[in-house]
């Protein structure tokens, strides 16, 4: 066969050429993947292999003013059971002991747990819920139960951790402490302190970019977190848990007694504006009460007679009346522009001073005084009220503050001839409980209107981040003279006015009752009267420390509805309890009074003890205690009989001192 080596090489070159083309095709394909399809695959790589993990930050705590916890985040554990992973042998061996342990721990019968577990195994349930939201210590205990102690794969215990906000003081002040939740759209639902100070409490979640590796694990890409998590700050609130507790229970008792619809109590520290307690209780269908809504801040309503103080003060400040100005309240009914106004006492109060008008809370009295002085210039009256900040919101950090309403003659609607007299006794105006209290607190604080405050401090561990001080809304809402007159009137209300049932000689209070009709515009009002009973004031009457407002909506009329009867006792009980419960600190000075005789005795002994003895000293006449210590210090063994002063000593004075020798002393008193 004539096949030359040359031909082999030619064919080889053809093959090599083909291989070269092949390698070029590979190269083209690589560039195609990289540049034409590149974006798609890079995106796929990103989606499949990297993920930004959120490192949740710990939410800060909310503390009471004394450092007690109001809200704290704690881990909770859901315990589930995988009935399939457990071997038949282990299951049968442990089911009874496990059921017994569970039964003991969670107070259900052994049979209940046994059938639950067996049923789960029969139905191949791999996710049987055993217990929800148990504490960490319970979780540790459950982990040691029979079967569960074999570990998650052999024992089948599944644990899911979640963080739960807990309120150590329970339901008390729940609404005030509030909460903050993120809804599905990522917006925060913000309630109470938690909501108001969420910015501080929340902290900042961290981020860590991780890359997927085999076995479904993720490894961090970089050494450091992309965003370091920062734990939330702690918020020290102004709430005092003792006062809160008192307020809560006093309100609750009264609500239950009067079967009222809802009620609220606020206690505020006069000088600083710190809110010491807020209780908001609403009625359930079953007739029990719980922290339903933040009425204290959110509910703006017609204040009724508590507003007479504002009207009275405006007129005083304008010097159109004085406490001694006499007004004729007539026979208890009076018509203003065809509208009937009546006083609570049948037959009326007749001619009385303005001070007395306030004490007895005469609607006619205050309405007449205001009407007479301002009917031609109602705007002036309203503007004085406005100067006292009554028409402005308090600008609270807590969301949902109700808007105050003080109508002005220039308003397009809501003003009539009747508006002025109605306003003077608290109708046609609207304030929230906290707004009313802020005004009363200003009276107690000699005219300085301070802003109600809910937090004192924001802290990160022990480091102070921000401190909140007193904020003054209005440095002087009225002249001191006016304020003092009003203070006297408020004191008299309790001593001899509508609030006299609250009077106690042991402690002083000042305040104003209020009994306002509500929903009087509804058709069934005549047959089903509804009232808002209130009491606003402060205590002690002199140098007030706290101001307080109690508002109870729709008490059962047959039981009572007057402010003094319904709201007043809550106020009194808070005032009383704060007095009684606050330990008075009596400082005893000069506890160690030097007594000359003792001092002399000691001096004598001291001189004797300082001497250097070579022989037995004479201890006769010395007190036994001194003699024993003196002799023992010399190295003698002392035996004592009797008590009192030394009468005789067994070794005579002047005998040579021998250490360890025994001496007997005879004492007698």
């Amino acid at each position, binding site marked *: *066969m004539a*096949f030359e*080596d040359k*031909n*082999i*090489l030619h*064919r*080889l*070159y053809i*093959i*090599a050429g083909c*291989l*070269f083309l*092949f*390698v070029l*095709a*590979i*190269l083209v*394909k*690589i*560039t195609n*993947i*990289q540049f034409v*399809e*590149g974006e*798609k*695959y*890079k995106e*796929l*790589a990103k989606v*499949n*292999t990297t993920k930004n993990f959120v490192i949740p930050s710990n939410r800060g705590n909310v503390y009471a003013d004394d450092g007690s916890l109001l809200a704290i985040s704690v881990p909770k554990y859901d315990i589930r059971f995988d009935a399939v992973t457990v071997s038949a042998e282990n299951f049968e061996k442990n089911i009874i002991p496990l059921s017994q342990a569970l039964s003991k721990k969670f107070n259900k019968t052994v049979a209940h747990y046994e059938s639950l577990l067996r049923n789960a195994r029969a139905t191949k349930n791999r996710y049987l819920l055993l217990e929800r939201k148990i504490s960490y210590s319970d979780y540790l205990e459950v982990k040691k139960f029979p079967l569960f102690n074999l570990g998650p794969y052999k024992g089948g215990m599944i644990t899911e951790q979640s963080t739960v906000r807990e309120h150590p003081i329970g339901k008390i002040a729940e609404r005030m402490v509030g909460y903050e939740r993120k809804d599905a759209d990522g917006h925060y639902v913000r309630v109470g302190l938690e909501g108001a100070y969420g910015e501080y409490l929340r902290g900042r979640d961290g981020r860590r970019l991780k*890359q*997927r*590796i*085999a*076995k479904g694990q993720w490894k961090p890409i970089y050494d450091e977190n992309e965003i370091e998590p920062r734990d939330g700050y702690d918020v020290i609130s102004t709430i005092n848990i003792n006062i809160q507790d008192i307020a809560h229970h006093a309100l609750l008792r009264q609500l239950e007694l009067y079967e009222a619809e809802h009620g609220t109590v606020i206690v505020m520290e006069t000088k600083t504006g710190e809110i010491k307690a807020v209780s908001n209780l609403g009625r359930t269908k079953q007739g029990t009460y719980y922290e339903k809504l933040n009425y204290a801040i959110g509910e703006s309503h017609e204040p009724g007679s508590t507003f007479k103080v504002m009207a009275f003060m405006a007129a005083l400040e304008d010097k159109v009346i004085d406490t001694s100005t006499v007004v004729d309240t007539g026979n208890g009914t009076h018509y203003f522009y065809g509208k009937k106004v009546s006083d609570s006492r049948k037959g009326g109060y007749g001619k009385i001073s303005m001070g007395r008008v306030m004490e007895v809370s005469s609607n006619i009295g205050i309405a007449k005084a205001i009407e007479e002085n301002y009917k031609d210039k109602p705007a002036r009256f309203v503007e004085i009220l406005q100067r006292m900040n009554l028409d402005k919101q308090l600008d609270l950090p807590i969301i949902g503050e109700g808007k105050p309403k003080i109508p002005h003659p220039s308003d397009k609607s809501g003003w009539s001839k009747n508006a002025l007299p109605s306003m003077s006794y608290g109708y046609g105006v609207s304030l929230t409980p906290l707004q009313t209290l802020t005004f009363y607190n200003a009276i107690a604080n000699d005219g300085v209107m301070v802003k109600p405050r809910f937090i004192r401090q924001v802290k990160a561990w022990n480091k102070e981040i921000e401190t909140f001080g007193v904020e003054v809304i209005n440095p002087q809402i009225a002249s001191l003279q006016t304020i003092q007159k009003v203070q006297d009137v408020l004191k008299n209300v309790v001593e001899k006015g509508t609030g006299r049932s609250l009077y106690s000689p042991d402690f002083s209070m000042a305040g104003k009752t209020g009994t306002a009709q509500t929903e009087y515009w509804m058709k069934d009002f005549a047959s089903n009267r509804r009232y808002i009973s209130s009491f606003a004031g402060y205590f002690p009457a002199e140098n007030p420390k706290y101001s307080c407002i109690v508002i109870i909506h729709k008490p059962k009329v047959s039981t009572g509805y007057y402010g003094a009867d319904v709201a007043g006792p809550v106020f009194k009980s808070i005032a009383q309890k704060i007095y009684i419960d606050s330990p008075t600190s009596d400082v005893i000075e000069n506890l160690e009074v030097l007594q000359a005789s003792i001092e002399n005795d000691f001096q004598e002994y001291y001189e004797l003890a300082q001497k250097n003895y070579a022989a037995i000293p004479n201890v006769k006449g010395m007190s036994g205690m001194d003699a024993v210590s003196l002799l023992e210090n010399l190295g003698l063994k002392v035996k004592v009989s009797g008590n009192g002063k030394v009468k005789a000593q067994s070794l005579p004075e002047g005998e040579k001192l021998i250490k360890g020798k025994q001496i007997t002393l005879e004492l007698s008193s």
Partner: protein
Amino acid sequence: MKQYLQHIKGDKAIWAIAALLALLSFLPVYSSSSNLAYLYGNGNTLGYLLKHGMHLVLGFVILYAVHRIPYNYFRAFSIIGMPIVFALLVYTLSQGTTIDGANASRWIQIPLVGFTFQTSSLAMVVLMVYVATYLTKIKDKTISFKESILPLWAPVFLVVGLILPANFSTAAILFSMVVLLVFMGGYPFRYLAAILGVGVVMLSLFVLTAKAFPGVFPNRVDTWISRVESFTDSKDAEEGYQIEKAKIAIATGGVAGLGPGKSVQKNFLPQSSSDFIFAIIIEEFGLIGAILLMFLYVWLLFRILIVAGKASSRFSKLVVIAVGIPIIFQAFINMAVAVELFPVTGQTLPLISSGGTSIWMTCLSLGIILSVSAKRVEVKKETDEENPLDILSEAV
């Protein structure tokens, strides 16, 4: 140094390429071993590095030893080797190792050493040299088709048939390499066409039998079909998964690559240190790294052409082609799989992929080539000495 270098004979460029490939191989092998260490080991990657190093050292010992053997000896070795290869292949297949019920008997355990060895790789080298020997023998004769059946095609079909059940791709490549070699060796075209026909018929018979009687003998027919299907339809099969990961690796690598050890896809590619190592190389070293690697293989191809071209005898030319072209072919197939130019096969990247058999057989092949090129140099110096084994090969 010079002293040592003078022991090294033959084409210096091939030596250089082999050394370069071996050195470079540490980078991707070490990188992708991290996943193996995590998945199957105790997390220590040093073991994999040492193992790869030992494979290479042993490979270069083989390379050195083989290249010192005068190439004429290989004719005899191939003839002696054929029965041994048959025996080994039968033994391998008879082990009956299965992967998911499919025959996957590819390896035998080497006693004492603890290494596993893929016998089909050895069979490939031996068979190729054998075919070259046969072609040399018939160079001046005119043979009939019948005459070539027993000495040539019977052993070829026997070896391919023994490899086929467990390893389709190697069998197919081996068969194509034989056909290619026979084509270059001057075997008549007509006969070759007939043989190709026989090959196709036999393969079809095998597939049909396996399909018709699935339980008769374990085979991997279903795997091949699914692989080919997934290549043509790009179905979302396991192969589709591998290819997707490989393409992601290539795309993220870009021009410059992510850097040594920074591969992400090595965690998801099951054969990241062998079958899909090219994708990992592109991911870590980019297009630049890929081009460099391809250049090394093309250069090797070029050197093989030169050695073959300058080889003095018919056998030396054919044996260089017989063992040289499969190395290059294997390399390019491996690359083509990673870039989805070719269905998924189990071919390794010669001298780069981890795995002892692949390294050793590549070294054996390179040793043969170097032996030829070394001989050429010596031939110039002295006359051909009498080779006792030539007599044996003439006799068979």
